[in-house]
């Protein structure tokens, strides 16, 4: 049967945008006789394979060329790919405006093949992400040999038949026995989709209800179990009654806590029983990642005093198209920044904004998100018809408005809410690790910097764009540009400046005038007619988190210049965004 190829659209876009003759490898997975390419990395010494979910592997290479392709080199590289007999080769002709041609390699021959472009949201509807967590403790002698040996032993131990997995919400256990009964708690061997779609347990389901246009991933939680009694699947070794071995050798030992936290990408239609080996692979992958990071950490750092335990974080940059899992040791900001930079470079990602800071981590839903602020409600807003250049906020923000978290700020809290929306943007973009400040924190901050008297805390006094600027600067270290206009009419002429802000910075803007505060999420500027429209997020909304109401009643929507009060002056706070990763 002929293998089909699907390629995630952003891969092709990224390759078309390259300016040098890059070469690298393509990540993919295999489903229904189709190779699905969903990521890429440059060829260098860093192998990032332990950072991608289990079941994602190298399925091909890409190479930019300007004159002639080096066929031998391509064949040699492809020969190293062992998960498929027909690896994919994407050829990028630099001299022909980066035209990308998809080839398949079979029997040492390169032949062009058609491919289908898919979007991330279409692609991931075919998959579940399974997130496996558990705790392990590694003890090793603190030298290279000791570390390698200990990790090796731990991996050997885990694959020796003692590992089992539990689907906590279902009370189902997958044990590694090689017979039919290795699913405990469920009859037969259903597909993964059968098990999870009906039960409404995967976390994507709730999200879909109110944010249609956003990429939603179905994530299943699984926990790591260890069998401590013998059964048929145990590898037979010589058994004996417990003995106590006392070894009085003194040496230095490293106790490394390992929070296992690892992802697998699984076909919805796979049988549940097939999950066992995939999960086992994902633990092993996670351990290898830990080991690699530990080695590289010890090259640059001394383990002195208390060093916090390494942290596992998952990232899903939309620019990347797949999950990247990082194991992060406590180290200097400079080292972390260098690591992030090289990761950006490796994955051909822009260094203009952060994607792999702690705050960028993927937020797995813990329970119900129904009462949480909506993310990016403007994605559901109908397009404008101004025919101009549209520039919108980049990335994600949370919609803060009146009366959230059981607080009645109706009539005075609108600028606070707009400030919270701005702060959420900085958090969700990864610039700040800080949670969105509460009203009290905002007020206290203004008192602390001497802008307001102590009585301001817990008062119901409103704030304006100047205060918003102060707080963003003090709590988040963000500087803002302040734009003044003397009347609502004058706002109509701010098109170029606002376009520039959204292009360069992409952060939401807080605008205050008279007694009202709003958030500007974007503009539609028609250069020919001079017409300007504003995408407004209105903090005066007092209802629940209902996207339909918010969009249909215009709490988030496009407004003309007549939205502004002609007799009032306005101040805008434009948060400036640093260019760093």
């Amino acid at each position, binding site marked *: 049967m002929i293998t089909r190829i699907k390629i995630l659209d952003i891969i092709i876009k990224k390759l078309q945008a390259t300016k040098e003759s890059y070469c690298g490898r393509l990540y993919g997975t295999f489903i229904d006789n189709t190779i699905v390419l969903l990521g890429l990395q440059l060829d260098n010494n860093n192998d990032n394979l332990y950072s991608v979910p289990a079941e994602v592997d190298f399925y091909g290479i890409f190479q930019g060329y300007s004159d002639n392709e080096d066929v031998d080199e391509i064949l040699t590289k492809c020969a190293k790919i062992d998960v498929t007999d027909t690896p994919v080769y994407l050829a990028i002709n630099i001299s022909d405006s980066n035209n990308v041609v998809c080839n398949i390699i079979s029997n040492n021959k390169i032949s062009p093949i058609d491919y289908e472009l898919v979007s991330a949201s279409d692609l991931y509807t075919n998959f579940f992400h399974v997130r496996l967590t558990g705790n392990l403790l590694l003890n090793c002698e603190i030298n290279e040999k000791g570390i390698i040996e200990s990790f090796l032993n731990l991996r050997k131990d885990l694959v020796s038949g003692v590992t089992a997995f539990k689907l906590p919400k279902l009370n189902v256990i997958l044990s590694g026995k090689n017979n039919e009964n290795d699913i405990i708690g469920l009859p037969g061997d259903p597909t993964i989709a059968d098990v999870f779609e009906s039960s409404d347990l995967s976390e994507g389901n709730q999200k879909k209800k109110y944010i249609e246009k956003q990429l939603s991933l179905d994530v299943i939680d699984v926990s790591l179990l260890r069998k401590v009694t013998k059964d048929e699947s145990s590898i037979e070794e010589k058994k004996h009654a417990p003995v106590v*071995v006392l070894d009085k050798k003194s040496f230095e030992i490293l106790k490394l806590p390992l929070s296992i936290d690892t992802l697998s990408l699984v076909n919805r239609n796979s049988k549940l029983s097939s999950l066992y080996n995939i999960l086992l692979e994902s633990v092993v992958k996670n351990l290898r990642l830990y080991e690699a990071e530990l080695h590289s950490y010890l090259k640059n750092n001394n383990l002195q005093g208390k060093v916090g335990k390494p942290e596992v974080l998952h990232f899903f940059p939309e620019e990347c198209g797949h999950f990247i899992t990082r194991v992060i040791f406590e180290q200097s900001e400079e080292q972390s920044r260098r690591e992030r930079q090289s990761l950006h470079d490796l994955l051909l990602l822009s260094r203009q904004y952060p994607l792999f800071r702690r705050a960028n981590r993927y937020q797995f839903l813990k329970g119900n998100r129904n009462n949480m602020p909506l993310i990016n409600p403007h994605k559901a807003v109908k397009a404008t018809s101004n025919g101009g250049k549209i520039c919108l906020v980049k990335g994600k923000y949370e919609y803060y408005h009146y009366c959230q978290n059981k607080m009645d700020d109706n009539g005075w809290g609108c600028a606070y809410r707009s400030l919270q929306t701005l702060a959420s943007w900085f958090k969700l973009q990864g610039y700040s690790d800080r949670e969105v400040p509460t009203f009290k924190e905002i007020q206290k901050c203004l008192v602390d910097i001497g802008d307001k008297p102590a009585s301001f805390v817990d008062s119901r006094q409103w704030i304006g764009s100047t205060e918003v600027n102060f707080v963003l600067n003090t709590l988040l270290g963000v500087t803002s540009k302040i734009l003044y206009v003397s009347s609502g009419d004058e706002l109509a002429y701010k098109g170029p400046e606002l376009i520039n802000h959204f292009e360069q910075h992409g952060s939401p803007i807080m605008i205050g005038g008279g007694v009202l505060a709003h958030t500007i999420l974007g503009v539609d500027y028609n250069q020919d007619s001079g017409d300007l429209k504003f995408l407004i997020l209105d903090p005066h909304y007092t209802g629940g988190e209902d996207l339909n109401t918010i969009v249909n009643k215009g709490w988030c929507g496009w407004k003309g210049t007549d939205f502004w009060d002609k007799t009032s002056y306005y101040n805008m706070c434009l948060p400036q965004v640093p260019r760093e990763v």
Partner: protein
Amino acid sequence: MARYAEGENYLLKYITEIPNDYKCAVGLILGQISSQKYHVIHFAKTPQFQDDENKKSGKPLETMKSISEVNDSWVADHARQTTRMLPGGLHVLGLFLVTDEDVLNPFHSKLRSLLTAINKILGQQNYLFGNNTNEKLILHYSGKNKRYQAKTYDVASLSVQPVDFKFIQKGSKWMTFECEYEIDHIYYLNKNDSEGPLKKHIKVILDSINSKLNRGLILFDNDFKDVEDKIDNLYKKKKTARGSSNKTVDHVENKPILVTILEETALHELPDTIELINIGGQIRIVGQVVSKTWFNSKTSIGEVIQAVKEDIMRSLATRVDMHWDSLTEEELGEEINSVHEPPRRVLITLPECNVTISDYLFPGEGPEDVKASLEELLDIVSHGDLEVSDLEGQTDISQYYQDSTGEVESEDILPQIATDPNKFKFFLGLGTALLILFISIIFHLVGN
């Protein structure tokens, strides 16, 4: 709170024959409480007591004439040592008394002090799980009027209650649960804490094993069971499939039910920091504990889970205790690398009721060596017809010898603190607190 007790006729036969030889005797009632009922499986007459002085001077044993002559601590120690042999879920339920005195109406003060002593000693020891209730069962039999009567006595509230004790032809069914629990636990000795008795460190390790066990997830025949369910449902309810199940379990009655214990690794607490420690050595406990437990069919799954955990801990604690007791001062000093080999568990089928109890054999001992303790503690005289399963296996010590010296090319030598069967000395008797005092010989492996 149990008000009913039952036992099979062999027990009645045992107790009614005692007056042929003894005017007054006391002994232990062994069994299980489930669904408000005492299920008695065995009576074990306490051996005659003789103090050290009389023993030395070679005086013959004097038979007791009255209950007031019973030595409390002697009987209590009998209860403690017998409990060590019982699988989890079985207990010393109380005492039987054979005497023509009227001891139950009114409740004899000697009985109160005896039962209090037993309750105390059974409650003292960690991981013995000797008392599952403060209420003790007493059965009195008088050879003169050939009548028996039973009561319970609550050592906490001091209240005495009547019990309806019935001897029947065939008691209710027992179900068996089996598992092999594997231990591989490494404990690091802090540099400044590496001295001091090994015993102390082992206690910490036992605590840690116990807490892991307590958080374990338990499956029966590879399936989840509701803790409220009664175990006889394990046989009755076959997998009437939800959908197309191929899980039809052919349960042969009396086939043991496999217990699987799983640890949720997420429940293991991890330190918040990477630790770098200078250690003064390490202790590794490695091996398997074979567990076989027996339950009346009306027992709940929850009770079985608890009892299986208790069985494993009781067995582990018993064997390390026996091991320490067998060592000399120097051996306990643990200044040297060594492999300690505590005795292994063997299972002995009680002749009358099929339930298995445990005995512990030191390295080099074989099944024939269980005879003595069986006779001493359980009053079972065997004629070579005992069914003994020696399942746990003995260690090939050299494997650990290589582990700890082979690769580090250490100069250390690893003596094995265990065994030379020819040099065993047994003190079969209850005068000392030891079941068996085992003097081990340090066996240097120099040049091996």
